């Protein structure tokens, strides 16, 4: 399912003194099976944008097309997207409500009208995907640790087997190991199942590590779209947009002040930088 967004504008509480424009004229194309990271400072319109992709908000202007479903300002019924676009909101563990982990994960598939057998199969599969041990299925979700609750909530979305998965700051409040594990599990689902992923983050490191495209938002509009390397080569401009240069890119820049020839700018992860430095060091040794 390709996602095409054209001239998308959204105004909250239009026509009242509290009117606020959250999005103005956003254009974005996300190819089927892509992994795009939407980055931007707080209040740049990221969350509003993804709610349109999930069919949870109707645009004030412009249109959003997800697969063959088109959402425009006069769309009434948005339920065609339910189950096909999964959304993991910020702090998704706050939406848990069932008595047991398995029942909570089953809520989405059940709403899709699947048979009991299929629902049970999907629950088991989703728990496996997020790394929840099967013996937790009978426990109350409220007795679990924060990290486990987060996984239950993510599993609840994945169990619907959406073609597009939208994640709004999925790692907020997790420890570094938990962050990495959650995102790498989602990344492998993206690779294996061809699931389109839209990741909202203001952690540039995360965005660079997993996404193949980065969409930068600033004050309700898209200001840049490109590969992670292209975005980070923007240096100072990133700060203007309220974003920070990732640590690795910063370190590379500082090293380059002393190195000739400089290290390539597209080093985005610590691993890549490490490999490059070792390579250089080995090359330099024989002399």
């Amino acid at each position: 399912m390709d996602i095409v967004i054209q001239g998308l504008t959204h105004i909250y509480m239009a026509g009242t003194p509290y009117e606020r424009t959250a999005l103005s004229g956003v254009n974005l194309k996300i190819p089927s099976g892509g992994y795009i990271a939407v980055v931007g400072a707080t209040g740049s319109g990221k969350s509003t944008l993804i709610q349109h992709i999930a069919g949870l908000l109707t645009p004030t202007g412009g249109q959003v097309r997800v697969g063959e479903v088109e959402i425009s300002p006069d769309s009434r019924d948005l339920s065609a997207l339910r189950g096909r676009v999964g959304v993991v909101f910020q702090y998704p563990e706050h939406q848990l409500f069932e008595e047991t982990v398995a029942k909570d994960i089953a809520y989405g598939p059940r709403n899709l009208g699947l048979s009991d057998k299929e629902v049970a199969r999907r629950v088991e599969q989703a728990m496996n995907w997020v790394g929840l041990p099967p013996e937790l299925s009978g426990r109350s979700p409220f007795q679990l640790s924060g990290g486990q609750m987060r996984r239950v909530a993510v599993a609840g979305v994945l169990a619907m087997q959406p073609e597009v998965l939208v994640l709004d700051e999925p790692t907020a409040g997790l420890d570094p190991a938990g962050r990495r594990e959650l995102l790498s599990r989602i990344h492998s689902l993206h690779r294996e199942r061809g699931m389109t992923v839209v990741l909202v983050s203001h952690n540039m490191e995360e965005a660079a590590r997993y996404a193949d495209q980065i969409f930068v938002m600033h004050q309700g509009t898209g200001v840049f779209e490109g590969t992670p390397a292209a975005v980070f080569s923007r240096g100072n401009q990133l700060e203007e947009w309220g974003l920070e240069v990732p640590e690795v890119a910063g370190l590379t820049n500082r090293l380059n002040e002393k190195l000739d020839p400089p290290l390539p700018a597209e080093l985005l992860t610590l691993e890549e930088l490490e490999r490059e430095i070792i390579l250089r060091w080995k090359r330099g040794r024989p002399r």
Partner: protein
Amino acid sequence: MIQNPILGQYVPGDSPLHRLDPRAKLLFVFCFMVVVFLANNGASYGLLAGVTVLAVGLSGVPVWMILRGLKPILYLILLTAILHLWLTRGGGVILEWGPFIIHRNGALQAGWISLRFLILILMGTLLTLTTSPIALTDGLERLLSPLTRIGVPAHELALMMSIALRFIPTLWEETDKIIKAQRARGADFESGGLYKRAKSYLPVLIPLFISSFRRAEDLALAMEARGYRGGRGRTRIRELHWGRADTVSLLILALLTVGLLWLRN
């Protein structure tokens, strides 16, 4: 998202009504609500309506906003008016149409009651439209403080009120978020009978309850950590000042009462 202005939502401004001391406004509105019941004929209702229109004008709040907020109440007024038209007897029949017989007294009652209702609600709305929730609770606490001697927990009541007001938007946002999250998981809040629809809100209400308890606990902890020990000996950053305008507003109220007593029959 809240799409319409809510009845009585505070509108910041700098009108004469905004500048009045919250204590004066509270006293005025409270007494006004009592004296409204003195009116029983055209002249006395006219006086009340005049004062109300004057107050609306002084508030500087756009009239359309007040009217929009009043919309849900209008149905209630309409309903009471219809009931009065239909059920109040006496004074001779003025209209007869099938089972609907309208008596003269019924028509009068319907008119007066609707007007009284409207005046009461407008005045009450003006209070919250022109007074920030913080000023309102401050004023209430000060007005209630003489009663602490007979065991009324004035400070605690005011605190409860301000916390409740403070968390309305937060809870509203939270509700919005959870509804969206469950909707994305295929929840259907619109179709089915009353029972099914009520049941479909469980996945929203349960998380909301849980988060409210968590929030309350966090808030209590944060208050204790910052040394909150109740109202005793507490000084405030915003002192209330009773000015000349406040005295004048209460004089107007007294004049209004005298006027009503004189005009009613």
